[in-house]
């Protein structure tokens, strides 16, 4: 859309004339071991967010182990009881255990986010790689389509998909995935273009490699880190977006224990039962924050 991403010094060669500068040898402040130490340090930083994600994945795979209580059938006798040793997150109006519902709900959020990211990653990166590698006309056509996708705020784009496909968990996931295509396409293209301009790619062509050899050996491997970092980021964003759609009532129907839907259902008891809205929401925050942290760490290690 905007030309602003290409902020390299404009027409530097033309305006500078004589006396333009050459690059001065880069300075190394720290010895080479520092890089290794930084890697070790960042591995430690992975631990907490990684543990949160591993726990949530375990919830999704083996909900019964973590929360034996039934997420759907309630016990009216204990309705609306606050958090306690027995009911960690309290119970809702029909006496269902909220913690159990959160644990059983993780599969909806995680699989939905996974599907959404897969759609965005596969479709978006493919478009981006084609745009970045093919000729100008293909590039222009693809990027204009991407511009259109970018021009529509992502929630509205998701809602447009939902209004066409109808409500449901799968539809919501697809809707969120479609909304992330443009971001993946733009990043993948800019990475491909960046790597393509590098000296080592020219050197590879110079040593007789064909275009597809260069693409496979140099361009794709060197573009993936940034795209993976975006995928991790989009995973968090997708969980956020899916819970928002669930909250608005466009996702899974009741009594599915979907996180956003649970918050929406808890709104009727705001004054009396704070745990119904607060605790499921906190779980969403923890998961999204962890995914974002991991994305940032992947990006930094690049």
């Amino acid at each position, binding site marked *: 859309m905007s030309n602003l991403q290409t902020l390299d010094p404009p027409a530097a060669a033309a305006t*500078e004339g004589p006396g333009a500068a050459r690059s001065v040898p880069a300075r*190394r402040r720290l010895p*080479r071991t*520092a890089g290794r130490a930084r890697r070790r340090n960042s591995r430690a930083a992975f631990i907490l967010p990684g543990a949160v994600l591993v726990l949530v994945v375990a919830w999704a795979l083996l909900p019964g182990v973590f929360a034996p209580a039934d997420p759907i059938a309630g016990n009216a006798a204990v309705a609306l009881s606050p958090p306690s040793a027995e009911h960690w997150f309290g119970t809702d109006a029909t006496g269902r255990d909220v913690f159990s519902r959160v644990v059983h709900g993780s599969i909806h959020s995680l699989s939905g986010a996974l599907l959404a990211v897969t759609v965005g990653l596969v479709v978006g990166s493919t478009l981006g790689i084609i745009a970045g590698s093919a000729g100008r006309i293909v590039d222009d056509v693809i990027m204009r389509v991407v511009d259109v996708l970018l021009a529509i705020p992502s929630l509205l784009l998701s809602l447009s998909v939902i209004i066409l496909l109808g409500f449901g968990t799968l539809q919501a996931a697809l809707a969120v995935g479609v909304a992330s295509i443009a971001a993946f396409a733009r990043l993948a293209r800019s990475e491909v273009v960046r790597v393509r301009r590098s000296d080592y790619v020219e050197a590879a062509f110079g040593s007789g490699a064909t275009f597809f050899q260069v693409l496979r*050996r140099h361009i794709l491997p060197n573009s993936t880190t940034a795209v993976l970092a975006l995928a991790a980021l989009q995973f968090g964003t997708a969980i956020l977006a899916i819970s928002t759609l669930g909250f608005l009532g466009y996702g899974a129907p009741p009594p599915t224990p979907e996180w956003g839907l649970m918050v929406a259902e808890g709104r009727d008891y705001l004054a009396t039962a704070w745990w119904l809205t607060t605790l499921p929401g906190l779980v969403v925050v923890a998961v999204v924050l962890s995914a974002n942290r991991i994305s940032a760490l992947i990006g930094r290690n690049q």
Partner: protein
Amino acid sequence: MSAAQAASTGTALVRVRDLSVTYQGTSGAVPAVRQVSFDVEPGAAVALVGESGSGKTTTVQTLLGLLAHNGQRTGGQVVFDGADITGWSGKQLRAALGKRIGYVPQDPNNSLNPVRRVGDNLAEVLRIHKWGDRAAIRARVVDLLDRVGIPEPELRARQYPHELSGGMKQRVLIAGAIALEPELIIADEATSALDVTVQRRVLDLLDELRAELGTAILLVTHDLAVAADRADDVVVLKDGAVQEAGPTATVLSHPEHPYTQQLLRDAPAFAVDAPAPAAAPTASGRPDVVQVSDLVKEFSLGRRRERFRAVDGVSFTIPEGTTHALVGESGSGKTTTARMVLGFEQPTSGAVTVARQRVDGKRGRAWRDLRASMQMVYQNPFSSLDPRQSIEEILTEPLRNFSLASGADLTRRVREQMDQVALPAAMLDRRPAELSGGQRQRVAIARALILRPQVVVLDEPVSALDVTVQAQVLELLSTLQQELGVTYLFISHDLAVVRRLAHTVSVLQHGRVVESGPVHRVFTDPREPYTQELIAAIPGQGRAAVRT
């Protein structure tokens, strides 16, 4: 600071004593400066000379109180005009910076605030120190620009930094450093990024200002030749420690420390009396392996603008097994010419023949087949090797592209090639990031040679390397030429380096060949004024004068 101590500092303007600095890395403390001591007398020029990692920049940052957050002074003092500034508060230090100590940075192109006008950039130091009112500042800015030799100072003050050339920007920065007539100017690699003729003029300006204002200058440089020309005293640093220090003339004529001796030997500028490239073969009897005739490359600058000729009728030939150098300053068209020789750019007109094959106009398969006979070594070994490949993958790639070897044969050829560039085979499974700059450049040379090409284009192959590493790589290139009979096209801005490797040379200016011929003849008897100017600008020639 007691009176007795102050008295003991004598007349020196700056007195650095046993200065030690460490950086706190994640893997522990790394000493960067160890017990460095030197003096700068009022009005004197002192050079801190060292290669990358020698601690010269850290020393200067400590002087300026601008050490990075993870850096810490662990011992020693810096006494400025009788006061130990290491004990100063931030406020005390800020009062002196800019006013009593001026600073000229390394990279003029990024050292002026790009969104403010040149005049505002220059006025900043006056405003910080509350010098005069608005009108006085405006007048002073124009005076200063005029003083540092910038034509049309009033116009220039209203322009933005990107509208000025690199040399011009460095003049503006110097004007900022002298604006409040400081007692000391610290010039941190102030001319390393500039073309050689521009460098000379900027250094001349600093000398003039020193004479006129009586300002002392601390010159930080990697270039011993610059120090030789401009400094009264030199301090040679390596690994954070002083190796040798003393009056320039003494240190250069009787270097005592082995490292200084090595620096002197390796600095290309001092190699006037070094042997010319091995056994310059006579051109006669050897076939020309590269023929370039009347090469022209035009670029269009926007629509409806006149076209700009980057290369304008360049012709030369290179006899087999010899080295031809293309020499020129930035914008002279030397790199564009080299890229056309390789077929990376298509000429607007003219012809290139390499090993009896036409290069221009070739595409696809035919273009690819030519790669086996010509290769390139890039300036920056940090960007020309794929960071994700191992050294082995980097070296096998060309062989795989041409299906020249496989299995055990492939391994053998890669190992042989490593041996040839004097790298241990154990390095094969490392990645480029684990190698030093010189090692990386050896890998790049190995990659270029593994296909046994007849011609290798060397695009500034040593200008990103330290002086001692430069010498080793040049030596290697020269040895390989003798062993393999390969022909080099050598691109360089550095005339001193050219003298070491090339047999013949073409001097380029504004896309045209100004002068060409055997290197020895061009250097000893330059006929064109531009060549004469270039050669005169090579630093290190004042050394003879110092000696006597």
